[in-house]
């Protein structure tokens, strides 16, 4: 078993990190601050999840001025992560609406 693939699944198994991937997949890169504004968590929590995603090689970062900008890595792993996060997120929202019909 390759060392490179274990962290990928660990990274994606976390609900919050899936949301980070989902948000990154829908945009052109984001900072920890902009992600924290979009997601219900602190900048510190976002930074921790971004670090985990980076270790899993799903996300890459670049310095832009004084900011660090994160984006999904192109390639099959990033695409798979993005598909899982996007499609999974869509069904989360749909099932939540379905649940509300019976609430």
């Amino acid at each position, binding site marked *: *078993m*390759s060392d*490179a*693939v*274990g962290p*990928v*699944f660990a990274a*994606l*198994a976390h*609900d919050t990190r899936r949301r980070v991937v989902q948000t990154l997949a829908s945009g052109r890169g984001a900072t920890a601050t902009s992600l924290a504004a979009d997601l219900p968590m602190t900048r510190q929590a976002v930074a921790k999840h971004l670090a985990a995603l980076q270790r899993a090689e799903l996300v890459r970062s670049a310095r832009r001025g004084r900011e660090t900008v994160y984006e999904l890595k192109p*390639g*099959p*792993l990033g*695409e*798979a992560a993005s*598909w*899982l996060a996007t*499609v*999974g997120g869509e*069904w*989360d929202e*749909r*099932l*939540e*609406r*379905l*649940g*509300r*019909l*019976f*609430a």
Partner: protein
Amino acid sequence: MCNYSVAHYRRADVNKVEREITVAAEPEDVWRALTDEVLLSEWLAPEVELEAEVGGELYVRSEDGEERWDTVDELEEGRRLAFTWADSSVELSVDAVSDGRTRVRVVETAALPVSDWGPRLTALASACALTLA
């Protein structure tokens, strides 16, 4: 109340998303929400038209205005509805959990096999299969 399955992360199928929710309702009522156009428009997408029969047409307009014409592949009355949508197949199933509680399960599978997503992903899939077999 919501109970989302993360089973897909423990399997070799990286092109599959599985989710489920348990609601306080009878299976017949939940089935109606899955097959009645008016009810589908309340949760699946803002505009849905469905001929609830095998080979029937499914029209979906999503929030962003994207329109899709899809086909019903399988229909097991009161239990299971499967359709092809864009590049994925979707299966919705309904199960009675206990008195007055019903589970809805959804599985969406991308048409593209994992092997087409590149050798590294195939390695990932087999590594997980090895670890968890």
